[in-house]
């Protein structure tokens, strides 16, 4: 992915309004919670539960936007608005892409927090 995983303006704004320590704590909470949301997406896909799928995508989008994780937010938003695809394989591919975006966002956020 050529796009930067984190919009630094958003992240700096969050730090400025809530404090750097709090921001880092919030990042850690997000990184604890996000795998659960992705797992929720996967199980919703397996169960064919569209509502659950969209709600999980919605939560992930909302949190990703909080930290300026733009690429992750964009992918989550797409899943939220589209809902389950008629072709499960397309969702599998989208979920794999989302996981990759989450991994790079997580790395970048941890680096920002420790930096």
């Amino acid at each position, binding site marked *: 992915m050529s796009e930067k995983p984190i919009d630094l303006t*958003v992240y700096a704004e*969050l730090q400025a*309004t*809530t*404090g750097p320590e*709090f921001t880092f*704590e*919030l990042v850690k*909470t*997000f990184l604890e*919670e996000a795998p659960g949301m992705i797992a929720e997406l996967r199980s919703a896909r397996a169960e064919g539960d569209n509502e659950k799928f969209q*709600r999980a995508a*919605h*939560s992930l*989008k*909302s*949190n990703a*936007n*909080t930290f300026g994780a733009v690429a992750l937010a964009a992918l989550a938003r797409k899943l939220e*608005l589209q809902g389950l695809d008629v072709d499960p394989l397309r969702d599998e591919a989208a979920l794999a892409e989302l996981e990759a975006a989450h991994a790079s966002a997580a790395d970048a956020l941890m680096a920002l927090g420790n930096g």
Partner: protein
Amino acid sequence: MADYGARLLIVDDNKVNRLLLSRHIELLGHRFALAENGRIALEKLQSEPFDLLLLDIEMPELDGFAVLEQLKADRALRDIPVIVTSSLEGMENIVRCIGLGAEDYLPKPVNSVLLKARIGASLEKKRLRDEQRELVRRFATPEVEQDLQQSGFALGGKRVHVSIMFCDIRGFTALCESQPPEETIELLNTYYMLMFDAIGGHGGVVTMMIGDGLMAVFGAPLPLDDCANSAVTASLEMLELIEQFNVDRSAAGKAPIRIGIGIATGEVVAGYAGTRQRATYTCIGDTVNLAARLENHTKAAERCILIDGATRDQLGDGVMVEPLGEVMIKGMAAAVDVFAVETA
């Protein structure tokens, strides 16, 4: 600052959002409690007072729309301002929230400056609303206030079946002349406090006070199952309270006071009369005139409580009455059956 130390309820199913909103609220100097979904939020609202709600929409169990609907239907909760914070997309969702009574809508991630402004404005609005209600309560009655809240204000009346009570202090003018005005005011305040207590305690509403006289309605604006019994029971309690008050007065070397009470039951027109700017809740009709005349007649009859036949007919066995026969009462076309309520 007017909104200092307000108590907010943050409702969001997402942990990161809850933490972030909590942090914003803490930095603004307010206190908060947390709820993870709409059901928990409603439970908390029922058990603790809150000044403002920050409400997410997309939630499991009970979503934000349902919370807004339930709040609106609840008299005790419907005035708590709600600011919706959501990352739900689509104008129709925002419109729906506002339509359901939300004060404002903030998209997530919430901008802290906007959040501060919206919270400040909402709390200020709530403060003004509380203040206004307090004023209405002071000058009207809780029943009138409730009626206004439910039905809104409109001049005009409706026919209702009620018992009307008039009460005043006998020989009040002579009493005023024999003591300093400060003492008279003090006496009136105590008298009104006692009378309001007895009347309100039995579901009556004082609608008018003139000098030492008062008029009370039993059965309007809110209906009462047994208005005649309530009015008569209240009047007996009023006499008891005056007796106790007289014990204090005689201990202080002051003359006892006596009151006269007239009660009539029947149909009246009840509603708000006056102008759009200044109106009062009142009842009009023959029943009102009769109650006033009966109260006036207590002096000639040498009885404390006089009631009409309609009131007597509705009384239970517990109350003893003495028939005084038909009495020609000033202002009434025909003679009226008058009864005296026996006092202990």
